[in-house]
């Protein structure tokens, strides 16, 4: 072989390898699925249900101080190590946890909680009222400045009444106070703790070892206050940076549970043997919003034209593959049941009408817009579908996909004229009113300001009468559909999968709050 052709072969080989590497990296998790092991015994699970090890795949955690956690994975770890005072179940209802029961004064300003007498921290110290007082005082201390300071600014006083009773006094009524007490950060820590690296909680699992960016290994806490709980012997949280890698680990049996699946991942796992899939409705949603304080969004006809131009069903089918719920341009989704009003009519899908409305608003020759999109979830897909649907009505949308840290960095997202933002699920809707839509709210990204809206939001946020509250939320939805600045195309579901061996797994809207106390794994 002469010199030239040798080089030719080497170069071609090199390039083929490069392209192959490209293809491989592109395929990522696409490597042929390893068939998961058949479930042990197809009939009823074995009699000895307790024991067993559950390996859970989540993204790596960074923060271990409950007051500072934010990622789902961090909350998942904290929820296993610590306890909440009260908990929220999969049906969005308040349940006792460390508090066995509670009373509310007639004026709705004083809450008295009775604590279990059996709880103790993993170092052996009994958990008492002073730990609860310390926890919530820490969370609301403006000098410490945690994310919860605003949330708890309505608390005027927290007092221990003996060892096993705590009294919270509020400044004004708050119909959602129990939900606030079950905020993701509100895990009870030991009085005086400032260093949280030893994971000294009172929760169902004790940390045996923590290797950052690799895994956390936990054992069932022997002295947990609820007898017979947890049912597992070991809980291992294994870190994966990429969900598709976690899905492959599930297929190969390396892990037993994977959270935060995308719709395509869920759909393909659904069809596989040995895997169980879970879907829970949530109130997480993407917001497509046009700033209301500057042209063209200061004319409500423009966003209304958009509402008429889009085909919600098509968006839902294409982008979400029909999973979740179709949105109605308000942050109040079907998960909120009584607060949700499905009977308020949305503008009909009417492209010609949208075109005319846009012309009436002063854009007879169409409107050029740049849509800023964080590269997260399926937002780029959503943008592509919106672009093509809006084009029919005369909107010429240019898409700019940005890394998430660029979109959200330096609060740039609050200034973007036209963008898509992701909002997480909350157990009650008032949060969205208070931080997203009232005049001057902290994250009022659409710069919306409407006196009537603010008045109704005030009623909804303070009234102790459920009927008045529901009426206010219905009015709010009417206002947003009529003249609001946002399009909410759909609500995301929470999607997860486990192997067939996993039982009694109740996925929660916020997956970090999934309760592992009931879970069992048949061996």
């Amino acid at each position, binding site marked *: 072989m002469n010199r030239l052709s040798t080089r030719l072969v080497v170069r*071609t080989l090199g390039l083929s390898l490069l392209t192959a590497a490209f293809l491989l990296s*592109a395929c990522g998790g696409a490597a042929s699925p390893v068939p998961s092991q058949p479930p042990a015994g197809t009939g009823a699970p074995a009699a000895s249900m307790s024991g067993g090890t559950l390996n859970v795949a989540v993204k790596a955690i960074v923060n271990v101080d409950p007051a500072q956690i934010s990622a789902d994975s961090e909350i998942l770890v904290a929820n296993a190590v610590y306890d909440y005072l009260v908990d929220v179940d999969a049906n969005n209802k308040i349940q006792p946890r460390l508090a066995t029961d509670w009373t509310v004064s007639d004026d709705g300003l004083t809450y008295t909680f009775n604590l279990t007498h059996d709880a103790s921290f993993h170092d052996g110290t009994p958990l008492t009222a002073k730990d609860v007082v310390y926890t919530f005082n820490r969370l609301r201390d403006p000098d410490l400045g945690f994310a919860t300071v605003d949330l708890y600014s309505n608390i005027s006083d927290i007092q221990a009444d003996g060892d096993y009773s705590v009294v919270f006094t509020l400044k004004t009524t708050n119909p959602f106070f129990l939900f606030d007490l079950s905020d993701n950060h509100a895990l009870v820590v030991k009085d005086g703790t400032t260093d949280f690296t030893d994971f000294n909680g009172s929760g169902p699992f004790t940390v045996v070892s923590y290797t950052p960016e690799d895994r956390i290994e936990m054992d069932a806490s022997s002295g947990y206050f609820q007898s017979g709980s947890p049912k597992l012997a070991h809980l291992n949280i294994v870190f994966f940076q990429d969900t598709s890698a976690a899905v492959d680990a599930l297929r190969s049996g390396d892990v037993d549970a994977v959270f935060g699946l995308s719709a395509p991942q869920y759909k393909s796992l659904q069809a596989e043997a040995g895997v169980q899939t879970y879907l829970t409705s949530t109130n997480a949603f993407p917001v497509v919003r046009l700033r209301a304080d500057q042209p063209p969004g200061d004319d409500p006809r423009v966003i209304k034209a958009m509402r008429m131009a889009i085909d919600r069903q098509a968006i839902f089918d294409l982008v979400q593959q029909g999973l979740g719920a179709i949105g109605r341009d308000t942050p109040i989704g079907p998960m909120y049941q009584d607060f949700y009003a499905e009977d308020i009519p949305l503008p009909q899908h009417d492209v010609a009408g949208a075109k005319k409305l846009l012309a009436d608003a002063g854009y007879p020759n169409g409107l050029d817009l740049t849509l800023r999109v964080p590269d997260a979830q399926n937002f780029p897909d959503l943008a592509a579908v919106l672009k093509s649907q809006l084009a029919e009505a005369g909107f010429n949308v240019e898409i700019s996909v940005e890394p998430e840290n660029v979109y959200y960095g330096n609060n740039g997202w609050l200034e973007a004229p036209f963008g898509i933002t992701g909002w997480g699920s909350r157990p009650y809707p008032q949060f969205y009113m208070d931080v997203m839509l009232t005049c001057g709210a902290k994250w009022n990204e659409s710069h919306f300001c409407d006196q009537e809206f603010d008045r109704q939001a005030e009623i909804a946020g303070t009234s102790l009468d459920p009927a008045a509250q529901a009426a206010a939320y219905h009015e709010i939805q009417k206002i947003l559909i009529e003249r609001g600045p946002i399009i909410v195309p759909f609500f995301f579901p929470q999607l997860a999968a486990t192997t067939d061996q996993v039982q009694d797994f109740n996925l929660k809207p916020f997956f970090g709050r999934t309760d592992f106390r009931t879970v069992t794994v048949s061996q």
Partner: protein
Amino acid sequence: MLEDVAASASTGAFPTQGQRLWRALRQLYAQSPSAFGTTVFMLFLLIALLGPWFAPYGSNQQIVADARQAPTAVHWFGTDNLGRDVFSRVVLGARDILSLAGLGTLVAVALGTSLGLISGYLGRFFDEALMRFFDSLLAMPALLLALLLLGTLGPSRNSVLMVIVVVYTPIVARVVRSVVLTVKSKAFVEAARVQGESLAAILFREILPSTLPALAVEASLRFSYAIFLVASLGFLGVGVQPPSPDWGLMVKEARSYVDQAPWALYFPAGAIALAVIGVNLMSDGLKRVLQAEG
């Protein structure tokens, strides 16, 4: 030998350009690898030129009912998750990627050639400074440099173009410079200098023709890597923006639902691989032809 070619080319004693091109083409087809490469390249060129006339669907035309369909007689390459025809997108994407890579290469070659000629011929401080600067650019992996630039410029077509130019100009300049160094002391350059020809005339009329064979090979090689770079940037999501039918971007998008519709990934990825390998085989053939001529 090289200077003989150059010298005779400038005197016009050799066959006409048309005849030379024809002969070069015949020689490219004399060996099967370069014949394959050339055919593939021509085919892609044709697709890029005529794509809009034979793509059955628009690049962003979404057919809701047809989402994630396997290849059929209607959708030759199947459809993606938004119900877009993958065949149409691959065909329409050819123009995007080839024009972007081609234009970027062209500018990089023009700029690199000029700088290489000047630097090599002038030598001394200018040469030293420029080459050390280029060395520092070349010390960085191309993709890293590209990401750095795109981070500052923001993702867009023009930024990608700029990136190709910045990444490939130093490489071209070095190749040209090395040829210039061997040529500049030859008699015909000396003669031109003695005759009092201007610097531009010496560089472009006397020296440039000698660099052409090496330049042609380098340009075609850069072109194949430029295709790869554009695709990689698209794949990383920092290049051409959606919903453009950019092949790299299509691979990135298809990756998230590959279990459901693998064809949406394989076809654009295959197109990238085929285009890169095709152009590369052609450039190897070109090298062989030019060396034979020398």
